[in-house]
């Protein structure tokens, strides 16, 4: 369980979110949605401990960060380090010993090549593999599906469902509503300057409709796009 009590975050005078009260239960998948800049990643960074905040964030297991797997939108990789060495580094940091890492290479990555030479999708797969080997209880997955191929998306969906069945607490953000609809037990909508909206599966369709209505289609006409003769 992760619980947030009156959590607020400001950057100078800019209020990102205010007085958030949330509970993320074990064995649940919690979707976080919102427009770009609504504060999804900032919320994740606050929970992970990368950002300071006002209010309280508590967890069943402490310190939270040592039981948390955090998949960033664009995972950080180090130069001149192979995929295998990246995994070994994270295992070493968390004091976990796994003898045959290669047998857990679920995405068939070329682990002996430099990770910085991987494609965008492969980098994400590497970060997911490493995160899953760290024996975490809580997971923050920030845009986990972006950059992945269709097969890997399907595999990741199954992995997330397995994590739920193992009583893990999962926080997930995605810009693909279909993925969230399929996976999440609850969706929280973050909107700038508005209170948090919590939506349960029966109301997902109306949430989708609300989000569609907020699209500013008329703004497309302001672009200087011209008809092509050829």
């Amino acid at each position, binding site marked *: 369980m992760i619980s947030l009590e009156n959590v607020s975050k400001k950057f100078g005078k800019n209020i990102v979110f205010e007085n958030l009260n949330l509970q993320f239960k074990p064995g649940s998948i919690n979707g976080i949605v919102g427009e770009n800049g609504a504060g999804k990643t900032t919320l994740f960074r606050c929970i*992970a401990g990368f950002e300071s905040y006002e209010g309280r964030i508590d967890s069943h297991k402490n310190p939270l960060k040592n039981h948390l797997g*955090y998949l960033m939108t664009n995972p950080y990789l*180090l*130069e001149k*380090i192979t995929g295998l060495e990246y995994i070994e580094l994270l295992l070493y940091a*968390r004091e976990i010993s796994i003898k045959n890492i290669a047998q857990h290479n679920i995405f068939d990555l070329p682990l002996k090549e*430099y990770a910085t030479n991987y494609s965008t999708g492969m980098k994400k797969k590497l970060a997911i593999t490493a995160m899953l080997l760290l024996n975490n209880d809580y997971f923050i997955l920030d845009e986990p599906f972006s950059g992945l191929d269709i097969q890997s998306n399907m595999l990741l969906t199954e992995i997330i469902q397995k994590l739920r069945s193992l009583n893990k607490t999962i926080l997930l953000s995605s810009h693909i509503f279909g993925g969230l609809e399929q996976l999440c037990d609850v969706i929280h909508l973050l909107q700038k300057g508005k209170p948090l909206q919590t939506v349960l599966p029966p109301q997902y369709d109306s949430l989708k409709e609300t989000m569609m209505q907020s699209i500013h289609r008329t703004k497309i006409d302001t672009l200087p796009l011209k008809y092509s003769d050829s």
Partner: protein
Amino acid sequence: MHYYFRLQHKRLLRYLKELGVPVPLALLALVCFWGAVSTLLYERLEWAAYWVVVLAGTILIKLSGVERSTFLFHVFGKQKSRYIGLVEAAALLLFFVPGLVLHQAYAATGIIVAMCFLRPFFGRWRSTSIVGPSFFRKRPFEFLAGYRKTILLYLALGIVCSIAVWVNNYNLALVCMSVVLLNAYGFYTATEEAYFIWIFKQESSSFLAKKCRDAFLNSLLYSLPFLVCLLVFFSANFDTSLFVWFLGSAAIFLMIISKYAAYPLSINLSQAVVLGLGFSFPFLFIIIIPLFIKKSLRNLYPILDD
């Protein structure tokens, strides 16, 4: 394209502002620092001009990085990106050539001029994808990555050190070991992403202690062939060799605590001045070291303990 140079000028000014001192003062300090370093280099080292060539070559390789070159190529096209390359190379020449000409190093000047003006006409620099062997594996990543990045320098220093033993030149062998340690010092200058600190299970004090211990053990391993060579073949100077090795290792330790004392920013000018004062008056380290450790722990606390 002129906008590109105006933008570069703006970026340069921003970097200087981040140093925490007024821009004119930072520029003056940079010029004085380079003047002092190059004077010392030309006075103390027999092959100083060629070390300058190596330095200029390293900067050129950085400027020719594949991502940067591809960006310029896509935005400006082939001709204009070459022109930008030439202007940047000319700026680099302004920095190095006066010193070389002043010290009558005409051959080195010729090499630098040729490198700078021919560079834009060659392809984009690609770093090798061949995975080099390493003694260091996962612990710590600074040595693992640093060793691979500078393996050619390490091998070249090994060859020069062997020649130094062959011709019985103690000073040259000592310089080789110093450069090896200086290179290891450089492994810790880059500020890592917070994620690579956050992921560690330890509290800030244990994390810092572990970083320093790993750096000490690995710098010993890294410089051991050179140290052994000095102790065996120049045993009469064993005290100087050990002293220089100790200084090099102490500098790595200072680099680590300075880096985290400034974290998440890079080491600023005021910190560099404090370190410089420490090296000039070593007794000041009695104050500087605890101060930097305290600041490091304060900066690491929110990431590891909070």
